[in-house]
């Protein structure tokens, strides 16, 4: 019992969320102004569109010690730039199959479409994702030990 508790306290996973400016970042803002809680270990990076998310950014996050990375964009068909999220979706499919090949758990990466009106969805997705990452535990495979202090 005690050992478990100590372990739990020591490990707080780090989650990086890439959010497009027009839908998901606004959805996160709405979650905030509606006071909908989600874990503090979710850190959001604003990008103009989900198509701005280079797969390298996600790999870099894992390399530097992130335990889960989620990318959020406008719903398909609703992209502020018409087609950006379609490109993002294809790129992520490719990246995920590569991560599969490398033996990285599929659940560590996720794509979600959250509109500016879906504050509740944003919070729910983040809570669920954080719980998943909590269960999976630390990302050890992609972490670059040279990057650590």
């Amino acid at each position, binding site marked *: 019992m005690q050992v478990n508790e100590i372990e739990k306290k020591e490990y707080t996973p780090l989650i990086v969320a890439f959010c497009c400016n027009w839908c998901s970042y606004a959805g996160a803002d709405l979650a905030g102004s509606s006071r909908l809680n989600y874990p503090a270990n979710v*850190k959001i990076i*604003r990008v103009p569109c989900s198509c701005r998310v280079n797969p*390298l950014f996600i790999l870099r*996050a894992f390399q530097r010690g992130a335990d889960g990375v989620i990318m959020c964009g406008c719903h398909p068909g609703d992209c502020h730039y018409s*087609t950006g999220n379609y490109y993002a979706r294809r790129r992520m499919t490719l990246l995920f199959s590569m991560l599969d090949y490398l033996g990285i758990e599929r659940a560590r990466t996720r794509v979600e479409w959250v509109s500016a009106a879906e504050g509740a969805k944003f919070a729910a997705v983040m809570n669920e994702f954080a719980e998943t990452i909590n269960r999976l535990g630390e990302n050890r495979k992609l972490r670059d030990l040279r990057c650590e202090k």
Partner: protein
Amino acid sequence: MQKIGVFVCWCGSNIAATVDVAAVVEALKKQPGVVYATDYQYMCSASGQNLIKDAIKEYGLTGVVVCSCSPRMHEATFRKTVQAAGLNPYMLEIANIREQCSWIHKDIKEGTEKAIILGAAAIAKVQLNAPLYSQTSPVVKRALVIGGGIAGIQTALDIADAGFEVDIVEKKPTIGGKMSQLDKTFPTLDCAACILTPKMVDAGAHEKINLYTYCEVEKVEGFVGNFSVTIKQKPRYIDATKCTGCGACVEKCPSKKTPNEFNMGLDNRTAIYIPFAQAVPKLAVIDKDACIHFKNGKCGLCVRTCEAGAINYDQTEEFITREYGAIVVATGFNQIKPTNFDEYLYNQSKDVVTSLEFERIMNAAGPTKGHLVRPSNGKQPKNIVFVQCVGSRGTSCRDKSYCSKICCMYTAKHAMLVKDHHPEIDVTVFYIDVRTPGKNFDEFYRRAVEQYGVHYIKGMVGKVEEADGTLKVQASDLLDNRQILMDADMVVLAAAIEPDPTARSIATMLTASMDTNDFFTEAHAKLRPVESPTAGIFLSGVCQGPKDIPETVAQASAAAAKVIGLLAKDHLLCNACVAHSDETLCNGCSQCANVCAYGAITYEDRLVMDKGVRETRRVAVVNEAICQGCGACTVTCPSGAMDLRGFANNQIMAEVDAICK
């Protein structure tokens, strides 16, 4: 290395309650490049902004980080602030420690730690910021209004009166919208036609307004100030330049069995028809599906009747492309058909009608010439039951979650009108709540109860049954806690209103966002209610949310004011965060141009100096006035030549690194 100043806002207690602001300042002072850090109660106030300006001058800051609310809120404000102090406005980054930190976390330690990390990420990014300069683009001084109801008409009239050209696109053969179907309007009971038709005529006759009726928006390209819109003109099979709207063809047409949309299908119309007497433009239109000529090539009575020779069976769809500086969405609403509310017997009984159908029955120009009669037998009803909130404020899948807002008031109006004409008719209203916020609204409702003796019963109708030619209404009275079984000759359902079904495809074309109910989202729920988050797209009327006529007209004029403000400018500043290509890395492969949704990338032969060798190469060139800054090309580029200003690869990497430290 930049000289960075960090300004942490308390936002009163909004941030300071869950984030130890002083600790954030102390921690961020230690970040590389930070030469000054402070906190203040309200950084966006005049004194807060002066604090930033003074610090920029005193410490010679080259970059500024404000830890405050969302950049969607005050990025523009603080950019102006740093600009006023002589910095380039893009040398600012905002760490969102309110919406994405203090408001969602309760633990002060947790909130403070997160705020420090978000601040550090913003500092890491601003280290790599470079001054950016906006291009300008000209503004086309013409506006497009999608939808010709009262919202669209009012917006168009206001814009046109300011001296700008306006086109109205209306999918129906006439403008006027839902208001043209109404009999009287609350809370003054003046007749809808008397106040609407003069406006329709004004819009039709205005030299600056161009009506595209029986048209649909087919394609939208471009961006604020420079939209290019393709409009589809559906064939009327009538030469609009010849038709005088005399109606002789309508009288002669032998195909008389098509449900009349204007009267909500309560009577029939002919295949060639004029929607209603006051239609603008007053032109006949042939319904191809009902016309005998289009079925078997025979008939042709209308051709022989028309003295003007206006009938033209060979008309086809036409496409018109025009340029606009601004677009106003005024697509309006529809009342839902309560066909899946079986308990109210709407499908089975003719005497169960929606309120809009009842409106047509009460209307002097309606199917019964304004005589209040039962649709089933043409006799005057002895008692009428009104049911509120049919499909509104519900949680099941057939319900809308929102309040349709107008039903309480129009039901009070209907009840009063019934009592006005026939005081002997018994009128009962079943309601969940009576909602009357608005000028003179509650007084209006109280008149219905106190002066006209309308029975208001708090409770919902559970079931309507038909027996012996009359309706039996089963309901509960929640205040008296008893069940009611009463007779009714007619039941009127205040069915929910929903956005017009075309709104979704229009939103997609305009890249304007919608909420889960398909109402258009405004740029800010309180402070920018008539603008869409997409620049140059404005919202008017019910397309943004349920509204009554006074509110719709107010919002329509507000949208017009915003459009006029935009069209009054000769040039707009473009987005400065645009893509650019590094000539020395680009190999001219065309992949970036393939993914660009705006056609902003072209190729030029340039003399490039590469590793000491001068050679002419085909390289990508970004037109900065057209680029919208999405960044699709930057990820596609295989050689890493394409990058996005303001969201550069190294900047986002720096943020990732700072967060993952």
